[in-house]
């Protein structure tokens, strides 16, 4: 029997069992809706997230960001667990060194309200990057990040350059007496940190501000040594040559790291990939001068969660510049990953609920097909008498179940899109920020929150699963129908 003829005969079964067919189709539809809805919205979330991230990059880093770059955000899972190695305290409230403060303008004992933009302004006022190599701040980096990303004063504060932000925790392990960091006075803390930095790094400490001349084919290592940064300002002749500042910006949201172990003690500066993406010129420079960088500097971009840092640093083989993407970045828990994890958990919950509903639906389909087979006994007998083979009879009921399953899928897709669009229009923004942790660190969104995606592949997989379940549900009834005793079937009243 040709497929089309089989389908035609199967449609008569739908007519014969309108109620049961509709019920089965609708319940399958409802079972699938939860799954499809989560996929559609999940896809929409991901797209919106990317779009926001991209927007953020464009706005704040003055550079073109290619799709290839953006792909990196979700490309590597191998650093997924790294974040945990740094402990929870790094999450939001770690004290960071943003640079030496100018004591004349910064009151270390003042209790600044760090959540106020005006306070940020006050905190950062006077700490021009031209005036200090490293800023030390006690500002929660999340808020600082917010400030840096969003404020229109960005250019003024940092003279168009990007500040270094060094985690205290990353270096205090090398301090003589880390207990002193528990001092109640911010000023005392600061003085102690400064003294430790001076002691360990000495003149090398100046290297924390990396300066490159793009025109130089070789990184002028001795350039650092000979220059007294304390006199550096933007009018300085050398300062004018500064093309780039490598930045570190540490927060729970950052995505990369930079090690410099030029001195005795490594300096960890956490570099959000976004900064480096923004600094395309820098990237290009690094790529061009790869050999020089490797031989003449100790600038290494690496992150290996499997080793502790000291071991990693001593093992030079671990320090290599990745060429994979033409830059020197390694993934850590990016906002996108964190968001994806949240989304995955939600989707797993939905998967379980949808799976249960789908199972119930398939049981109902099984019952419907069984009833249909029973009610079609005479017809099966007639078909067999006029030449239908067992497979023909089986196919009629298989097709029936498949059509019901696919009808359920169509219902589910249509309704899921309608629901997704409604949710997106009414509650898109709130929902996004409640699920996409960290999403609010991005610049204000200029796009509507259209949380509707087109997960074509996933829908195809669901269609196959739905079809398969339909076949499974109809397998035994269809088999029973095909094996039916024709004589008894013809005698059936």
């Amino acid at each position, binding site marked *: *029997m*040709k497929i*089309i*003829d089989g389908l*035609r*005969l199967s*449609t*008569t079964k739908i*007519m*014969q069992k309108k109620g049961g067919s509709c019920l089965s189709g609708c319940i399958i539809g409802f079972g699938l809706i939860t799954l499809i809805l989560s996929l559609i919205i999940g896809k929409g979330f991901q797209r919106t997230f990317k779009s926001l991230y991209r927007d953020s990059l464009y706005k704040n880093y003055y550079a073109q960001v290619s799709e290839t770059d953006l792909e990196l955000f979700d490309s590597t899972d191998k650093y997924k667990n790294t974040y945990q190695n740094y402990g929870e305290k790094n999450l939001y409230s770690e004290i960071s060194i943003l640079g030496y403060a100018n004591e004349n303008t910064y009151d270390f004992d003042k209790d600044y309200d760090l959540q106020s933009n005006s306070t940020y302004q006050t905190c950062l006022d006077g700490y021009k990057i031209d005036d200090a190599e490293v800023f030390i701040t006690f500002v929660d980096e999340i808020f600082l990040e917010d400030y840096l990303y969003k404020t229109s004063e960005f250019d003024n504060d940092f003279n168009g350059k990007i500040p270094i932000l060094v985690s205290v925790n990353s270096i205090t392990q090398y301090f003589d007496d880390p207990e002193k960091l528990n001092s109640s006075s911010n000023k005392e803390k600061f003085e102690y940190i400064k003294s430790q930095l001076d002691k360990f790094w000495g003149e090398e400490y100046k290297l924390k501000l990396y300066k490159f001349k793009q025109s130089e084919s070789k990184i002028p290592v001795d350039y650092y040594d000979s220059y007294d940064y304390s006199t550096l300002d933007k009018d300085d002749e050398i300062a004018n040559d500064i093309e780039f500042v490598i930045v570190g910006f540490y927060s729970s949201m950052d995505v990369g790291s930079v090690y410099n172990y030029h001195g005795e003690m490594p300096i960890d500066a956490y570099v959000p990939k976004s900064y480096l993406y923004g600094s395309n010129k820098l990237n290009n420079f690094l790529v061009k001068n790869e050999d020089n960088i490797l031989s003449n500097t100790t600038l290494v971009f690496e992150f290996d969660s499997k080793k502790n840092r000291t071991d990693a640093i001593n093992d030079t083989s671990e320090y290599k510049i990745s060429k994979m993407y033409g830059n020197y970045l390694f993934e850590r828990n990016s906002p996108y990953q964190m968001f994806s994890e949240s989304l995955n958990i939600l989707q797993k919950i939905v998967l379980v609920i949808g799976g249960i509903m789908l199972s119930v639906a398939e049981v109902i389909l099984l019952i419907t097909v069984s009833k249909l087979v029973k009610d079609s006994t*005479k*017809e099966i007998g*007639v*078909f*067999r*008498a*006029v*030449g*239908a*083979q*067992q497979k*023909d009879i089986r196919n009629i009921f298989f097709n029936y179940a498949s059509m019901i399953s696919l009808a359920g899928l169509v219902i589910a897709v249509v309704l899921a899109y309608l629901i997704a669009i409604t949710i997106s229009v009414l509650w898109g923004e709130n929902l996004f920020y409640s699920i996409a942790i960290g999403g609010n660190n991005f610049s204000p969104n200029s796009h509507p929150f259209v949380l509707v995606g087109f997960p074509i592949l996933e829908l195809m997989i669901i269609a196959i699963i739905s079809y398969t379940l339909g076949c499974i549900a109809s397998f035994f009834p269809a088999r029973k129908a095909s094996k039916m005793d*024709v*004589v008894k079937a*013809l005698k059936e009243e």
Partner: protein
Amino acid sequence: MNPSLVDEIQKEVLTKYNGDVDQFFNDIKQLFLTSQSEITQNNTLSKTKLGKPKDEIIVEVKNLSKEYKIGSEVTNALQNVNLSIKKGEMVAIMGPSGSGKSTFLNILAGLEKPTSGSTNVAGYDVARLTDNQASQFRNRVLGFIFQFFYLQPFLRIRENVEIPLFFADIPKSKRYIKSRKLLKDVGLEAKEKHLPKHLSGGQMQRIAIIRALINEPQIILADEPTGNLDRKTGNEVMNLLADINRESGTTIIIVTHDEKIAEQAHRIIQFEDGKIVTK
């Protein structure tokens, strides 16, 4: 006699016949004779309308037996049945219920396996066919006509006619040509897009007959084809079968309880207790 009927007749005689009882009875007699004449005419099916059987044997059954075991009890549905049917012959099988005629028909169609004996139908050793082979055999060699028509209620008339061709993988275009011709032959081409519920019993049986014919079978097995029809429609159906027999030379085996129907066949085979008692 029913007193109210007597009153009614009296009233009729008084009002319409003005008390002329003789005239009244004459008219009644005339009416009765006319009806009888029509009934007789409708019941008459000339044997000359059948085709002439050929010498070639198309069905040959030898020592056919069929036993059913229900628990320890054995029932002999057929016992050493021997029968030959010629090509182009119309055979009526009669017998009381449980005499084995339906079992015989089922074995001929490959729907049941005999306990012993051989069954050769159109060159096929039916008893030895596998399930799929038996299906194909029924599809290509046989045509089935049932007492209750068994048209598919949700398929249109033309599709109902084409059902055997569905299972023979015949393309739609060819099916259409065949079904249209047959529908035209039985005068139901205008109904091709209707559903069976819109047809009368006679029309439904005609559709069932052309459904049995659509694959151009060598043999038609008709199980009580007129059992669900009134006399007049039954005769029409029998005429149609006779036409088929005569024009296409198709062998027709009819199972029936109706002697008048059976008398229209070339031969009547009487079953009793699983045996053939009259050929």
